[in-house]
């Protein structure tokens, strides 16, 4: 196996769900029944044996695996920050051609060879700029980056009577994404990380990379507080669409209330007492600052599976999608937020 294919497999392992890999293998098996095996006992077997064998035998092409990785790294396991243009003139200047020209000058499409799979050794670089399939007025700008940081190995050593912790350098691959979702939403997607400082720095980095074409000062954060409130208030009307698990509220006197659903059932309104308390707080002009919503699978296949989201986190325009999902699933959530935030 080629070194580049090894890299592909490790990216698949880091980014893709079992279902995504199985779907790729299933499609390949229809074309090459003898070269592709799907059934596997474990995730490791599925990727390191089945997918590896399929790549080696040519049953699956490297391009197909690239596409799989692209889908996986662009949707889910992210913080999404929503922004809206302040002026119509800004909204009107968000066409792919105009933004591309602002970033790289005239004839950018010939000069820039997108997409690229190369991650810079250190720092950040543009990796892709395109309209997603069947959505000519949308665009996606993708940035790859790589950070080096010191990772504690868990080992200590003694020297001159002192105990030292052993650290080793580790690379962190970074994927940042800006998505224009017409007519009026700019999504800034930053990969999930335990460091809030890194998330803020990545958001700043994404704005600065858009800077030659799009100014941050031309946009306002899209506060989702109305959506959070309506999702709670109208839950009875949409029982097959979503359910929620945990929430935090802030009353007019800045008193905070936190509700976490019974750990083993996962449905907050299973408790009538909690439901009444939350609705009472909302009626008393409290604001819902955090809401953990699970979007239920739709009859038309979107979302494709239960999709958990946290509306709120640290910023009012922020949504956290903790797991990987399909790109259509994120669009579904954005559409629902548009509906409920009115």
């Amino acid at each position: 196996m080629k070194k580049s294919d090894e890299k592909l497999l490790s990216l698949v392992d880091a980014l893709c769900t079992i279902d995504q890999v199985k779907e790729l293998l299933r499609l390949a098996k229809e074309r090459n029944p003898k070269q592709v095996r799907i059934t596997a006992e474990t995730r490791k077997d599925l990727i390191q044996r089945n997918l590896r064998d399929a790549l080696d035998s040519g049953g699956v092409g490297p391009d197909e695996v690239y596409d799989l990785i692209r889908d996986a790294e662009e949707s889910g396991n992210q913080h999404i920050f929503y922004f809206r243009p302040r002026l119509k003139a800004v909204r009107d200047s968000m066409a792919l051609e105009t933004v591309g020209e602002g970033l790289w000058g005239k004839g950018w499409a010939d000069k820039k060879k997108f997409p690229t799979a190369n991650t810079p050794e250190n720092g950040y670089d543009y990796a892709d700029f395109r309209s997603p399939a069947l959505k000519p007025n949308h665009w996606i700008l993708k940035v790859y980056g790589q950070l080096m940081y010191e990772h504690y190995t868990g080992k200590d050593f003694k020297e001159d009577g002192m105990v030292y912790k052993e650290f080793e350098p580790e690379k962190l691959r970074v994927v940042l994404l800006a998505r224009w979702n017409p007519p009026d939403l700019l999504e800034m997607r930053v990969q999930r990380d335990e460091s809030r400082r890194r998330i803020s720095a990545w958001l700043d980095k994404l704005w600065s990379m858009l800077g030659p074409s799009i100014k941050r000062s031309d946009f306002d954060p899209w506060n989702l507080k109305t959506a959070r409130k309506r999702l709670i208030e109208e839950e009875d009307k949409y029982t097959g669409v979503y359910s929620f698990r945990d929430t935090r509220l802030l009353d007019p006197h800045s008193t905070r209330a936190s509700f976490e659903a019974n750990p083993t059932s996962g449905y907050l309104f299973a408790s009538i007492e909690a439901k009444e308390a939350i609705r009472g707080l909302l009626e008393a002009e409290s604001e819902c600052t955090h809401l953990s919503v699970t979007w239920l699978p739709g009859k038309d296949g979107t979302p494709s599976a239960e999709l958990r989201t946290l509306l709120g986190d640290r910023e009012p325009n922020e949504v956290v999608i903790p797991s990987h999902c399909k790109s259509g699933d994120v669009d579904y959530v954005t559409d629902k937020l548009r509906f409920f935030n009115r």
Partner: protein
Amino acid sequence: MLPTNFDFLTAERPDLGPALSRLREWIQNHKDWNVLDPRELARSLSDVDSYTLASALSLLVKSGVLRQVYVVVTPSGSLADGEYDDPRQIPERIPDRFNHYFDTLEAEIIPVLRPAGK
């Protein structure tokens, strides 16, 4: 819903029959629960001797009805997302229900039971 089809075990272990019957009843009354937390069960089924309850749960695991996994208790007392077959697989830091990361070395780790095969 959690499985309740374990009548066959009563024939195998008649001494655990009453405990299994109470467990079945409890599960039927908590249809929205997707995992069993033995701590919660012990509180709810206080009429069942704790040793007998533990034996019944152990039998359900051994017979393949339920599977034991480990979860981490968050600083606020909820269960964090993520289940682990082995406590050693638990990362050093994980997010709580509101996406705030905490140190799992200091956290309580508990076994819970979920339907086998899920």
